[in-house]
């Protein structure tokens, strides 16, 4: 089963779709969770997920904003999406009946 940060990374990459790469995923995680995402955690987790076959990465194009350096693009594999869904389902199941789950259900929607 996925870890919490692994799930956050997969979810952020899914939201970003074709724009999913290192800096963008990091920014997405930080802005949505309100927690700092270190570069070390991001890149080692990307490697781990790729080894597990849950994501696929490749070097994308370079832009002037990045000082002419290439991006490491990320795409979620079918297995990655399946495992993220399994994680989300288990979080939902385990949270059912908890006071914050029913309170936040309406807020998040």
């Amino acid at each position, binding site marked *: 089963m996925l870890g919490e940060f692994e799930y956050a990374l997969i979810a952020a990459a899914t939201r970003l779709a074709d724009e999913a*790469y*290192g*800096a963008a995923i*990091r*920014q997405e995680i930080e802005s949505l969770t309100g927690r700092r995402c*270190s*570069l*070390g955690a991001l*890149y*080692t987790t990307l490697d781990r997920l790729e080894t597990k076959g849950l994501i696929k990465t490749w*070097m994308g194009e*370079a*832009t002037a*904003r*990045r*000082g002419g*350096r*290439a*991006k*490491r693009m990320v795409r979620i594999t079918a297995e990655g999406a399946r495992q993220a869904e399994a994680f989300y389902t288990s979080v939902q199941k385990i949270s059912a009946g908890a006071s914050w789950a029913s309170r936040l259900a309406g807020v998040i929607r």
Partner: protein
Amino acid sequence: MTRAISWLVGMLAGALEPAEREAVLGDLAETNERSTQVLRDLAGLVARRQLALWKHWQPWLLLFVIVIPFGLMLGFRSRTAFNLSIVSIWRYVGGADSLLTDLGDHEFFKNFANIILRLLLSWFSVACAAWGAGFGIGTLARSTRVITVSIGFLALCLVGVVPATDPYSMVVSRLHLSLAVPAFFLICFALMPVYYGARHAGRRTPPSTRAQALLLAYCLAQAVVWPTVLLPLMARHSVPQAFNWTFAVSRCINYWPIAYWIALKWSAFRQNTVSYS
């Protein structure tokens, strides 16, 4: 970002694989974070990567069999060359009056120039060995070279600066030379060549397996054979006839970085000539 921070970022990023370095430096440029934060982030990533590499046995084997002995050996050679230089100059200059009377101006300065030339050669020899060590270790321990070379530096400094009790060291210590002078010598002729050798190795594409095997043999010879076989023989001043050729060969091998640089420049020159024609 200040120049010092940029240099530190470049040095830290050098420990990453080329593709990852490209992506990470691009991400850092894009986020516009504070310099200290950039440094902290990069140091964290490098530390994670290095820790993962040191879980395998190969870096440890290389460290204990080659890097530490090579560092100690270079420290010893650097200190010996420094002490010998100081003692030779001190003896010649100290006895200058009587030597001038005995030899005359011409012979005196000719001998002095000869001594200086031999000393310069010994310093150059230390620098060549140090560059070769940096290049060899940087190639063999490519991904772990930052930590590996740093530990090699520590071993080098340990022997190179700590006072010893051999006759030459005793003479040098009587001359009241502070720690700064041998340290300066050590930095210029040992530490800097090691650093530049390792940096050069990191910037080049990995050499062929045969070239790596040759480098391994060179490093093993310098780190293991020299201190365990040749140095004890030299210390006893009784080198058997059979070992004379070994000394001659090892002295020649010591200067391989010169041949390497000539080959490198020649290859670049040839490429330029071909592209212009």
